[in-house]
């Protein structure tokens, strides 16, 4: 049918691509390719091509200085015997297991507390959000001072209530925990906002009828709020987890991976191997292993949420 007829009928028919592509459709297509060209060009050069190049690199012993040689899976075999790599894996798993669940609980808790229409709520939400604006470096520098064992605010406040605080970043048993505190401080504000949006999507009548049926606060939460927030929690947990596995800035600035490699993260090790020792082939293999680990955890997360109503 002709363009004018189709439009007159108000149909949403794609009048440009019926019966082969019309001249108008071809023109539109040409323009579309021009429109997406800059973004797609950059995408292919800096995302797609690098992914393939990374696979190839991980099977070589490229180190910038000498010629690249194909070594097959040797880098991966080396990783199996690389103690430092396993230490960094342990470190990051420790960090993820502490930071992600705690982050979810705190941001959800904050969102629930601040989900009222009282005056001043907006200010509180802004206050909790502000740490999100800081860079990893700036937050690390500020907390380096706060966590100073002698004069830092944290230990001074603890001293006021009679506790002798640990040496935080100088103690290998508390260093990673300190980093968890810093990243939680930075990050809960953002997830709180996401949870606030999720909470506001829960219809009020659900709570009303629950109260009529005699439910208490905990039951309302466990049977209404938590299940209705499944998609939000899924989103928050995936984003949090993928980010947590790639921790770098704080570990680099606050502790340089120490003390005694207690805070050396996988990405830190990859950076060191690839850009300080210039062993780019080996580092690419490390990066791929991390990628697979993140993928595995993400798939488990997806599988756990498979029955939720959002699919």
């Amino acid at each position: 049918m002709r363009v004018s007829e189709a439009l007159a009928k108000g149909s949403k028919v794609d009048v440009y691509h019926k019966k082969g592509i019309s001249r108008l459709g071809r023109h539109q297509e040409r323009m579309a390719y021009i429109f997406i060209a800059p973004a797609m060009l950059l995408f292919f050069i800096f995302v797609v091509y690098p992914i393939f190049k990374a696979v190839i690199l991980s099977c070589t012993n490229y180190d910038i200085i000498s010629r690249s040689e194909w070594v097959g899976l040797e880098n991966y075999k080396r990783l199996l015997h690389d103690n430092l790599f396993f230490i960094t894996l342990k470190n990051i798993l420790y960090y993820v297991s502490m930071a992600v669940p705690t982050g979810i609980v705190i941001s959800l808790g904050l969102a629930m507390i601040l989900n009222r229409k009282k005056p001043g709520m907006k200010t509180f939400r802004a206050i909790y959000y502000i740490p999100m604006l800081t860079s990893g470096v700036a937050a690390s520098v500020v907390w380096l001072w706060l966590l100073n064992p002698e004069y830092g605010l944290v230990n001074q406040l603890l001293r006021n209530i009679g506790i002798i605080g640990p040496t935080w970043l100088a103690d290998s048993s508390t260093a990673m925990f300190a980093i968890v505190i810093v990243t939680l401080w930075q990050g809960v504000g953002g997830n709180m906002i996401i949870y606030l949006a999720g909470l506001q999507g829960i219809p009020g009548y659900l709570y009303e009828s629950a109260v009529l049926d005699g439910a208490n606060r905990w039951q309302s939460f466990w049977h209404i709020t938590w299940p209705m927030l499944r998609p939000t929690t899924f989103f928050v947990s995936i984003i949090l987890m993928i980010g947590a596995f790639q921790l770098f800035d704080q570990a680099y600035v606050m502790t340089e991976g120490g003390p005694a490699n207690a805070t050396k993260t996988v990405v830190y090790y990859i950076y060191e191997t690839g850009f300080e020792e210039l062993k780019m082939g080996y580092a690419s293999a490390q990066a791929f292993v991390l990628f697979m680990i993140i993928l595995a955890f993400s798939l488990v997360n997806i599988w756990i949420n498979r029955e939720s109503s959002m699919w």
Partner: protein
Amino acid sequence: MVLPFYWSLMTSIKYNEDIFTYPINWFPTRITFEHYISVFIIIPFARYFWNSSFMASMGVLANLFFGSLAGYAFAKLRFRGQNGLFKMLLASMMVPGVVVMIPAFLILKNFPLVGGNNIFGSGGRGFINTYWAVILPGAAGAFAVFLMRQFFLTLPNELGESARIEGCGEFRIFWDIYFPLVKPALAVLAIFTFQAGWNQFLWPIIVLNDPKMSTIQMGLQAFSYAHRADYGPMMAGSVVAILPMLVLFIYAQKYFLKGIAFSGIK
């Protein structure tokens, strides 16, 4: 929550003797700006400020323009390969950056005909150590295209259809009709892109090794590494590093919060 900010601000304006005291000195009776002066003198902090500003702003301009152009095309135009390409874009957002880091560095270094490179890309430094090494990889991010496409999808097709019938060219339809309608999304995108560009650290330390090209975050880290116990200037540096984002936030608060909520819902 904001106590760390208050405390670092206070430390940055206290005299050194007042910084290292027990008990806690909440309100200093005398203040000084010497730490701010020393942080700008000991390291070229002003230069770093400029570097970060330039790179972050260029990133914003590039993302805003190329991202909305591509997002518009995915949302409002029809072309072969549309769905496949968009799915690729989405999938790429799940790939951790660390995988792409090393190859991207090599691509920038061996870019033909740039920075002393011949046509095969060898001999020189390519884009390494230039602003472009930081700007180019993120210049039209998948996130920007995704965000703009979602927003363009909410706009009615009729606007473009009627313009097309009148004989209006495709770019004019985009630029004069649809682009002005997406200002809220552009504001959100601008803010997030600027924040990402201003705060980034790992990528700049990889591609920038000339101290003159360092970003403000690199300068702050270098300072804290070299002057571990100079907490006064360190805090002054961190205040200067955080201040632009704070100012931006106060000015455009609702866009920050809207943007985060939007990404959560979509």
